[in-house]
């Protein structure tokens, strides 16, 4: 059946262009949902939606950014159905230069921040970021997205992206410091 042959060809093309980004999407889904099962569902939902609308994808554009946009939309739809993520006031009162604290911590050989920093701390800190900041941090620091690309995915203006990224990064660092210190205290 020629129809099925064409579909097979299209599927192969989709796998080569889109499915290669599955780890990035799953990772982001995991940090966004904080739940492995939900992340799997969100990833699958994103890919199937993308596949259904693959004909609308312009070949010379950024496929990964297109997939992230679908992921973000799906995630927002899911969030709307659940309770909205709360945005606490404390996040607006972050010391903007907190990486100086890390520097101080690191410069002290007894404390040795990086030695004590584990995957568990990083994942916990990422997941504890407010929703909108989390996505910008993931896209910038893990996926190496430019501000323009992040703006396209999140639909925020570049200025807002910069602000969210700056605050998100500071909060992430603050949390990393806190978790490392907490663990050290427990060990001691």
């Amino acid at each position: 059946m020629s129809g099925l042959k064409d579909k097979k060809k299209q599927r192969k093309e989709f796998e080569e262009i889109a499915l290669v980004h599955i780890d990035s999407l799953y990772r982001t889904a995991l940090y966004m949902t904080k739940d492995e099962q939900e992340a799997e569902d969100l990833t699958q939902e994103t890919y199937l939606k993308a596949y259904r609308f693959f004909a609308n994808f312009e070949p010379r554009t950024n496929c990964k950014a297109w997939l992230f946009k679908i992921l973000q939309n799906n995630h927002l739809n899911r969030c709307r159905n659940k309770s909205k993520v709360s945005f606490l006031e404390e996040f607006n009162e972050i010391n903007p230069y907190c990486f100086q604290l890390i520097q101080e911590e690191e410069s002290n050989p007894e404390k040795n921040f990086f030695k004590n920093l584990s995957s568990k701390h990083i994942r916990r800190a990422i997941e504890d970021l407010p929703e909108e900041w989390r996505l910008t941090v993931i896209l910038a620091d893990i996926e190496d997205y430019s501000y323009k690309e992040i703006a396209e995915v999140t639909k925020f203006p570049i200025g807002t992206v910069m602000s969210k990224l700056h605050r998100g990064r500071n909060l992430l660092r603050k949390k990393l410091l806190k978790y490392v210190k907490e663990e050290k205290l427990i060990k001691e």
Partner: protein
Amino acid sequence: MDHLEATKHIYTFLDDELSQKKGLALKKHIDSCSDCQQRIATENKLRSVLKENLLKQKTPFYVKEEIKNEMEKIDRESVIREKYRIPSQLRPIFVSMLGGLIFLGVISGIFFYKWQEATRESTIFPRLAAKHIVFASQENLVDISSSDMEELVTWFKGKVDFPFSVPFYSEELDLLGGRLSELHQKGAVHLFYQWGDCQFSFFTFECATKNFPGAHRKEYNGKEYYIAKYNDQFIILWMSNGLGYALVCDDEEELFEIASQIL
């Protein structure tokens, strides 16, 4: 660029998103500032540790397999849909046919409704016939036994909701009396006559409709009337001033003779 200003732009500088002018100014400051150099080194190290750790997270193998299976399923379903899809050049014809069918359906529906309306029988004629049969077959059924027109009118006064008068009187007819009857849950006047061996019923009742399905509509002397036959009883019904009048008898000829005198 001073030190405080420089520290504000370190993230943007490392993201390679600073304007060329600002970037150069910052770089110039960094080259001569050991504190900023240290900050950048720490930030770079942190970024690399973060990335290294977070990139470790891989998609479980079955997720990819499930997506592939679902994609294949979508394709199979879409091929089936396309197979049974009407070709675009035939679509206008299909739409016209569908429209035609809907139009035919609506027209048929209207005709069916009209036909049903036309063939639906009025409930008034069987009731009139039944009331006459009861009168003709039983004795002592009259509420008031009198042949005096005035007395009858007085007796019915207040018992029915309309001004009642005996519409016809002939010496050849024997007025036997009257009975308070009920038609369509309203009071009606039922008068009994005898003409030779033939018994007649004459009804006066409130009637709003002029629609009497199942009856034949006729005109006589510019008046319209309706004829029907139920249970071997012949009925002639006419309307005047919001009231219905009906004559009922089992003899068609005699009924028409009397009716011709009234109508």
